[in-house]
């Protein structure tokens, strides 16, 4: 891309890169990786809708916006303590406000045995070598603009490790607060999570707003589950209504590892979530559950790709979407069964409710199968509430609006049935109900 074609978005981020004093600068390999990713980002810019991965999400408007390079007052901004606590989540917590670590709000004293948890900025001050593999990654796919941007500009995030055979009883809480500032900010976070052999962990990723703002947040997360490790991971995304949030998660599961991911997408104006999982070890299992509930002009795009690469692997995905008013929900669920991944069992369901004539749902379940001893199925629907169920409820004296709300809630709620943290599940239910159109 020549200088003249640079969009205001790219310009503002280039300026940010020039000014930035990122943690870890001076480490040769890190500087090189940051520079190369920045060059790649600037050269390609933001993808347009001709790039398949961005077919349903246009970034033209974002390309015209400018973002200030981070928040100098982030360490002093007031954050409501109630907003960053969740029922059933009482373990160690790391809190970031506008991308900056807040020790005063975090709980990292007295970590349980086997758990190591610290912000990336601190980890980089010590021995950075263990982070080298993750932080040297290059993103070469045409649609990876935000991952490149993140690799170039991220200086903080979460580094979480669980020692082999350690079971962390308490749920670890990661909180990302978008706080109102003087202008629109951009923040970039890089997370690295590793569970050693046979380790167990429950993790909650929590995006929350403090005041109205239209920030841009990008985050890249690498999760590695070693042999026999188990992860329960819940994401509650309740960012500010005007914000843009791009999350890029990669997960690798070794032999006999198991992961369950529950995602509730409520907030944000433009939200993109990539979840790429590789079932690399024999008998590894992944369960994903997700719901998005949209209204106004919200645009939420979830791109899930699960790759079965080993014998006897299993994945089971259930996603629900509700789009009201002028919102747009996009879902892609791709399952790849690679050659030799015999005995794989993959299933995916994407069901969506379209509640308004101005809303739109685009869903694309995909199967790519290269092995023959497999069981793979997917189903997708777009429709509206069942008339007969509505009639049944109304015939029992329930008003239309309430009947609709009940059925919509039931439609979404099935997704969280497998969540074993009761208090948290109840809270998510409440949040869901509060966001449903007729409630």
């Amino acid at each position: 891309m020549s200088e003249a074609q640079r969009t205001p978005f790219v310009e503002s981020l280039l300026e940010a890169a020039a000014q930035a004093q990122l943690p870890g600068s001076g480490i040769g390999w890190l500087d090189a990786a940051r520079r190369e990713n920045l060059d790649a980002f600037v050269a390609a810019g933001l993808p347009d809708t001709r790039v398949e991965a961005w077919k349903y999400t246009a970034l033209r408007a974002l390309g015209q916006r400018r973002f200030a390079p981070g928040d100098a007052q982030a360490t002093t901004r007031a954050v409501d303590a109630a907003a960053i606590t969740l029922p059933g989540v009482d373990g160690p917590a790391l809190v970031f406000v506008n991308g900056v670590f807040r020790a005063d709000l975090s709980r990292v004293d007295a970590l349980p045995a086997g758990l190591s948890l610290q912000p990336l900025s601190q980890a980089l001050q010590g021995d950075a070598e263990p982070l080298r593999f993750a932080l040297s990654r290059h993103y070469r796919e045409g649609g990876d603009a935000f991952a490149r941007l993140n690799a170039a500009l991220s200086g903080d995030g979460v580094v979480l490790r669980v020692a082999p055979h350690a079971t962390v009883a308490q749920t670890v809480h990661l909180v990302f607060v978008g706080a109102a500032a003087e202008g629109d900010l951009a923040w970039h976070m890089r997370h690295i999570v590793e569970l050693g052999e046979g380790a167990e962990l429950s993790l909650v990723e929590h995006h929350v707003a403090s005041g109205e703002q239209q920030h841009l947040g990008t985050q890249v997360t690498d999760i590695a589950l070693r042999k026999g490790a188990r992860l329960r991971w819940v994401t509650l995304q309740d960012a500010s209504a005007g914000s843009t949030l791009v999350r890029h998660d990669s997960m690798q599961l070794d032999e006999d590892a198991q992961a369950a991911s529950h995602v509730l997408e409520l907030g944000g104006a433009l939200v993109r979530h990539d979840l790429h999982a590789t079932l690399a070890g024999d008998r590894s299992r992944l369960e994903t559950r997700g719901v998005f509930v949209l209204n106004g002009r919200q645009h939420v795009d979830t791109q899930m790709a699960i790759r079965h690469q080993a014998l006897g692997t299993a994945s089971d995905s259930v996603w629900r979407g509700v789009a009201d008013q002028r919102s747009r929900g996009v879902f892609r669920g791709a399952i790849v069964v690679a050659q030799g991944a015999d005995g794989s069992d993959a299933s995916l369901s994407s069901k969506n409710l379209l509640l308004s004539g101005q809303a739109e749902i685009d869903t694309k379940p995909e199967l790519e199968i290269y092995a023959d001893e497999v069981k793979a199925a997917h189903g997708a629907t777009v429709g509206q509430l069942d008339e007969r169920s509505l009639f049944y409820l109304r015939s029992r004296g329930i008003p239309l609006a309430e009947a609709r709300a009940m059925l919509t809630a039931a439609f979404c709620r099935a997704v969280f049935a497998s969540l074993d943290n009761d208090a948290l599940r109840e809270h998510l239910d409440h949040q869901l109900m509060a966001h449903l159109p007729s409630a």
Partner: protein
Amino acid sequence: MTTETTDRSDTSATLRDNAEVAAALGRRYEAGFVTDIETDSLPPGLSEDIIRQLSALKQEPEWMTEWRLKAYRHWLTMPEPHWAKLNIGAIDFQAISYYASPKNKPKSLDEVDPKLLETYDKLGVPLHERAKLAGVAVDAVFDSVSVGTTFRKELAEAGVIFCSMSEAIREHPELVQKYLGSVVPTGDNYFAALNSAVFSDGSFVFIPRGVRCPMELSTYFRINAGHTGQFERTLIIAEEGAYVSYLEGCTAPMRDENQLHAAVVELVALEKAQIKYSTVQNWYPGDENGVGGIYNFVTKRGDCRGDDSKISWTQVETGSAITWKYPSCVLRGDRSVGEFYSVALTHHRQQADTGTKMIHLGKGTKSKIVSKGISAGRSSNSYRGLVKVEKGAEGARNYTQCDSLLIGKKCGAHTFPYMEVKNPTAIVEHEATTSKISDDQLFYCRSRGIGEEDAVSMIVDGFCKQVFRELPMEFAVEAKKLLEVSLEGAVG
């Protein structure tokens, strides 16, 4: 459909080594032969001059020449598409001869070169007999010019026009000008633009208002002269309340070089009209190592222009080295109906990327998609479909079912369905499964004394039944036979 993950039984292991199976594996393409007839061809290459010459050879009016040139100029500006899950070798468009017609054009069937008729005999389609017995009018296209048309009279009495495209351009220019390119515009996609520029011939069908076509119309396409791309252009128009069922079947003799086939089929259904379009495609798929075979890049689209109209596509695709084909329906009229039934089988190194598009524009429109993919050998078989419900398509309904069957460990079966819904009263459903032939089913058949190949053939037949049911009778028989032949050597 579910799959067992247990190991194959010992019996099948011994069968794998069976010499008979090995022989069947190496069986050559049965319709592979070349008829020696002198052909009158244009030199290879593509330019405005070639197109003018082609148009002049076919004695076309000025407007047609201009139409072709316009398409050619647009084609020059277009990039070759690469989005399909296909591995396509480079195509040298300048190495293709864009016109080949048998010399000494016959005036009636009796004058047809006996060698040519012999070719049909070898294929089991004796023109006269088949036509009489089956009550089918055959407009056989041999290379690029129609050589014989039967049952013209009977059709003419009903007011049906069924002739070659060249004839239609000469004799019914008003109809051709009105409808040609109205469903697939000249610049629609790369191969459609190429076809618009150089199409050689094809079929033209016009069913006037209220007429139910008295017989099923059929065309046999064959590609015979080497180095000749075949660029068919088919246009079918069903006026208000008309009905027509059209059958298209293909086989091609063995050739070592890849041959390009880029056809365009346009269907127009006016109010309450119905068009049923059935295809059995068995072009030369290339040998076991993927050498040779036809590139089949086809644009097929039906426009349900009138209210309550219906277009139904049924296809059985077993041939071609590469298939790139998405018969689609634009459901414009209120309450119009689109259907797509497909069986696609790939073996050895064949590649298929096929599916459909259902574009719902009118109120109460309905569409149904049933796709069955079977992959064997080292082949790759993809379903790619789009169901789009626009804002005005109140109460639109779609049901899609795609099933894939894998035979062997080195093939791939893929499903890429797109669903785009903008109307809250629409209901769109998609279901897909992928599995291999169940060991239970195989064991059951084998325990009753059915040989493994027969058992597989029975199971595959059952898997495809939903689609075969939609085919006209004589095609259904042929399709079943084709699948058997194509799957030979796939098991073990």
